């Protein structure tokens, strides 16, 4: 399995390289010279422009700039933010945990709600509860996340005052207190981000479970006296592969959605950083963030592959066969 993973990881290198070239090219093709952007309504003196140009290496050709940028990257140096002078890596690292946490919680919430929902729907198809549930999910799916965010804020933070409206918590006196406060702050944004995923995964789960429930092995297992619960366990195991594939498709969508959610809930995450950096034409940060999201998506796919191997023995043996074929 390890050699497979190494091969798999190495195959992402050309992709990453391609993405970095593309990002670099796009930024260099943008019509505005960053210096014009930063010079604001006042003006930059000739000296200041020259200073900035050499700082940005703008007097070199794009190819030369890409080469020196790539070399610095190999040393782990992403450059400095043009907006505030901090190292790009530090800027990104301070924002990344919020986005990862938000997305992680959303995935848990999506699957935690949608899978039982789908299982319930599949086990009593056509019942009133099943129909109502499906209608509700479609409705939630149709609500744009910014509208949902405003409604949730209005109810839970303003009218009822149960949850904080926006922002992230202060570090509390105890770890427990901090965690509790963090959970309260993240609840609304997590729900907003999860909304669109729920309907998708639940409908998917319902269909997958329905077909699995109709399969023969289940009837045999039940006939052998397996409890309903243990039988469900087999159903879930048999339907796990498509769920994992689904995960690979939702995660990039979530990352995109978190730009809006972070903006509305004033979370200092990567999505908001992306937005402000593009507005400020802060090239080093934009390139760093693009590269980061590429790495994240690629490692997401890698993770999905690993999960396949873990949950499905058939795939595992298939891979081993492939290797023996190759050998």
């Amino acid at each position: 399995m390890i050699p497979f993973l190494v091969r798999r990881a190495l195959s992402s290198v050309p992709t990453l390289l391609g993405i970095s070239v593309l990002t670099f090219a796009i930024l260099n093709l943008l019509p505005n010279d960053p210096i014009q952007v930063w010079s604001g309504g006042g003006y930059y003196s000739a000296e200041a422009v020259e200073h900035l140009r050499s700082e940005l290496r703008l007097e070199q050709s794009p190819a030369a700039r890409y080469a020196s940028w790539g070399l610095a990257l190999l040393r782990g140096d992403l450059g400095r933010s043009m907006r505030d002078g901090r190292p790009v890596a530090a800027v990104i690292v301070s924002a990344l945990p919020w986005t990862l946490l938000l997305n992680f919680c959303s995935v848990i919430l999506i699957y935690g709600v949608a899978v039982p929902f789908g299982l319930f729907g599949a086990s009593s198809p056509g019942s009133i509860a099943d129909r109502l549930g499906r209608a509700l999910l479609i409705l939630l799916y149709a609500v744009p996340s910014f509208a949902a965010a405003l409604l949730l804020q209005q109810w839970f933070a303003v009218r009822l005052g149960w949850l904080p409206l926006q922002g992230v918590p202060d570090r509390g006196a105890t770890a427990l207190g901090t965690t509790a406060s963090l959970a309260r702050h993240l609840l609304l944004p997590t729900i907003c981000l999860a909304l669109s995923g729920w309907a998708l995964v639940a409908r998917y789960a319902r269909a997958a479970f329905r077909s699995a429930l109709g399969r023969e092995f289940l009837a045999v297992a039940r006939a052998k006296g397996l409890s309903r619960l243990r039988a469900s366990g087999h159903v879930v195991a048999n339907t796990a592969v498509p769920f994992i594939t689904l995960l690979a498709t939702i995660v990039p969508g979530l990352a995109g959605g978190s730009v809006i959610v972070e903006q509305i809930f004033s979370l200092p995450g990567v999505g908001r950083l992306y937005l402000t950096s593009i507005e400020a034409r802060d090239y080093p940060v934009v390139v760093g963030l693009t590269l980061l999201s590429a790495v994240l998506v690629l490692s997401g796919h890698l993770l999905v592959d690993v999960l396949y191997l873990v949950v499905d023995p058939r795939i595992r043996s298939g891979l081993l066969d492939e290797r023996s074929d190759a050998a």
Partner: protein
Amino acid sequence: MRPRSLRGVAVTLLAAALLSACTSSPPEDRGAVAPSDYGGRFVYPLRTEPATLNFVTASDQPADLVSRLVGDSLVDRDVDMNIVPRLAESWESSDSGRVLTFHLRAGVRFHDGQPLTSADVKYTYERVIDRKNHALGHLDGFLPVERLETPDDRTVRVVYRFPYAPALSAWEMPILPRHLYEKEDFLTSRFNRAPIGTGPFRFVSWEPGRRIVLASNREYWGGRPYVDTLELPIIPTQETTLMALLAGEIDYASLTPVQWDAYSRDPAFTRRFATVSYLSLFFYYIAWRADGSNPFFSDPEVRRAMALALDREEYVRAVLHGLGQVSFSLFHPAILPPDPDSRPLRHDPRAAAALFDHAGWRLDPKTGLRSKNGRPFRFTLLIFSGGEDHAQFSQVAQESLRALGIDMRIERLDWPGLWARLKTGDFEAALSGTVPAGDPDDVVYGMLHSSQIGDGRNYAGFHDQEIDAWIEEGRRAIDPQARSACYRRIAKRVEELQPYTYLFFPKVLAALSRRVMGVEPSPRGLIVQYPGVIRLKIRQQPGG
């Protein structure tokens, strides 16, 4: 964020005190409740995050605000925009306006305990004029300086190359601690993210993307501020800001005209919040590119016709819900009181049509468009894509012009994109906005003087010898009466030539928690004024 030019630098000796502020349900009077106690926390949201807190290189509004709270400038402006002493106890002008001598207060210390001396002032000045630092917001006002001398620890003598009337304005710049910065690289110093000044508030923390926290400087030479903690959370959206106010998380929120209409008459809202509206210095304008690169706007007659064609009053009434004022002069009323003799160009489509005809742009019955020498009157207006008001006004304008046989297209750009096009002059007409500094020189020199084409803010590429001469006369006129007269002449000629059509000053609409007392709006804002912010008080909750 609204586009705005960097505050140029300059100053008013005119001390125009006509404050066009009005409050519809005014914050309670300072004397009404007497919280003798100090303390409390004032939470004032920022829409965007500052790029740096270095007083000299700071170029955005939030950074400017923090600089004025943590730092102290030699002079500042009060609620009515009059120049008042701050670090400088007094000053005098000699050699018929060429020399300005400041006397610094005794016993002023930085937050780290070091005393402030004239050397710090000199150091700060030198950082501004060092072009490598791109201290854009402050540089203009120091360009006429010949040299700066510090005869002793408490005296700063500034010698100008010529009698320079707006000189004081440039000294609204907070003073940096030389002893700390000297040992570091100026542009990457750690003090750029954790500033130390002599101001009424000490810097406590800056959590990126989240908030900036300041605490009162109990040893402040001007007296301890009433408020103990000033918290500046970064809340990027207007909707969330309003809800955060309703949820009691913050004490201040700016409102849109729609939000204002919905809330300012709601008793449940006004019981908790004071609603405040005032004319800020910000105004919208359209720049007509007049350098000959298009066949339309080099002709002043056409520009005048455009001004007559635009229904600015109707826009303020219908779209801004009356919450604004048409700018029939290029000067904000608090900067230069309106001229009773001026004859502004009001909406008059018939007169506009006559002017277009006279200028040779005649209606072509086949196309329904005006044309001249076979060229149809079709141009593109650049606007900022981030502001709903920009889009609304340009659509209203598009309709009015269409009725006169002019086809105006609208191109929406993000702020950096719009700015770049303005700077390079690559446009026919552009709608933008700016915040002028307190001295009338700032807006005329920056936008109208021919030396500011290309390098400066004269985006229209406008060049008029007479106006150039008057602007220079205004800069050198030490007598306030003569200066006023000079600027009125400029305003009158600008109204005739219309290099820019000044559109309107939108009112700033805001709601303020009733816990907060002692603030009056100034055209520059609620807390950017001096010594207003020191007097701000938080009503203490009984038992809390």
